């Protein structure tokens, strides 16, 4: 018999019993539907213990890598500690080591966590202003390339946390952040695959990390970045991205502006439209989307209809804080 620890309670799991059956038989309600390892309603995460391969069948590689599994198809091979996927609550103390403007609205916040901090470029963290107030920000840094973690924070009009970061936070201050969360990151293993990345505003942050991570990993397929804003002033890291595209033949950078005439070197139009028009069919491509939720939702559907497989579409919409 294996032991399953869930929410501080330990349960005995009989031979041939699944995690779902075990918890349900002990009166612990876990949402489920097909009970056949397909619909993914019973998704859980293992924090301890090895997982049987069949419990991760059909999951996106980025979920499998973080030890997510399906409770209905998991017959434990180890004692396990498991949780339901509500991550982002852990608090890790960190020191602010720099705040640098990227444009008139966006700053780069550099942090040094007090303890070793594991993350994948493209994931996000919750950044705590105080115990009760936090916002999610994507990680723009790459663990193997950068010696600190970096966030791109846009000043939101009347935004509680972003205004505090822009106006009050200073190098030397101490803050709390959560562990890294999210499944929008680069997974090695298919180096010839085309990567299409579309972002608006500070949605560039995770995409910038993913691109540098992929290039550092030796990704060979085309990597195309489309970054959109209303005007040139809304874009940032323009010189860094142009330089990166000169250094790597397979990386292209297309800055797009949606209002007014585009100067030389920029594209005129909505970033999603420009990207779809230039790339054409997306069969076999991997797609990363980040930024404005309307753009991200439209892009999910349109890139899928253009041929990208649902398993290959990774998105991180910015969800506005509840007012």
């Amino acid at each position, binding site marked *: 018999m294996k032991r399953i620890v869930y929410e501080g309670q330990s349960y005995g799991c009989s031979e041939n019993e699944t995690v779902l059956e075990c918890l349900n038989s002990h009166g612990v309600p876990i949402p489920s*539907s*097909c*009970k*056949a*390892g*397909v*619909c*993914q309603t019973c998704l859980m995460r293992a924090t301890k213990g090895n997982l049987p391969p069949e419990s991760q*069948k*059909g999951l*996106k590689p980025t979920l499998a890598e973080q030890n997510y599994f399906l409770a209905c198809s998991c017959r434990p091979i180890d004692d396990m500690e498991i949780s339901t996927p509500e991550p982002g609550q852990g608090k890790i103390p960190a020191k602010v080591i720099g705040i640098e403007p990227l444009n008139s609205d966006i700053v780069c916040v550099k942090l040094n966590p007090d303890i070793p901090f594991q993350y994948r470029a493209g994931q996000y963290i919750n950044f705590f202003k105080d115990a009760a107030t936090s916002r999610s920000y994507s990680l723009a840094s790459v663990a193997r390339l950068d010696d600190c973690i970096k966030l791109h924070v846009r000043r939101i009009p009347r935004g509680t946390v972003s205004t505090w970061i822009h106006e009050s936070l200073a190098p030397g201050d101490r803050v709390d952040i959560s562990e890294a969360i999210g499944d929008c990151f680069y997974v090695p293993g298919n180096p010839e695959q085309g990567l299409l990345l579309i972002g608006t505003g500070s949605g560039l942050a995770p995409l910038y990390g993913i691109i540098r991570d992929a290039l550092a990993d030796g990704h060979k397929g085309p990597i195309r970045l489309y970054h959109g804003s209303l005007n040139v002033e809304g874009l940032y890291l323009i010189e860094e991205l142009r330089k990166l595209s000169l250094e790597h033949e397979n990386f292209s950078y297309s800055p797009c502006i949606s209002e007014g005439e585009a100067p030389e070197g920029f594209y005129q139009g909505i970033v999603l439209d420009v990207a779809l028009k230039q790339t054409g069919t997306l069969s076999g491509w991997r797609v990363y989307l980040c930024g404005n939720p309307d753009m991200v939702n439209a892009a*999910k*559907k349109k890139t*899928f*209809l253009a041929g990208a*497989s*649902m*398993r290959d*579409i990774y998105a991180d919409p910015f969800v506005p804080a509840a007012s």
Partner: protein
Amino acid sequence: MSDTLYDKIGGDAAVNVAVDIFYRKVLADDRISRFFDGVDMDRQAAKQKAFLTMAFGGPNKYTGEDMRRGHAHLVAKGLNDSHFDAVMENIAATLTELNVPGDLIAQAAAIAESTRKDVLGK
């Protein structure tokens, strides 16, 4: 040992290919695409895979009650026989596109058809 319909169609690998083709057809079908507005596409694709797996005679434990509960909010939005017919057409077109023989398509269609009353809450 005789292969099941699920094995003949190509098992899990075939369903993975079929679900993308099927979901693309459904989203592009003006008769039914509105029922999919505003849903999380990842979750929806997983559910469609579960549904196709069932229609192909593969592993599933869906009950009529699950089907009823899962579609009640759509019935409230006007889901009716004409929409169910459209989905049936899209299933057949998906399998045709994958070069599945006609007799197997008919078997899969019969399984899908058997859920009609529960899906439509009749």
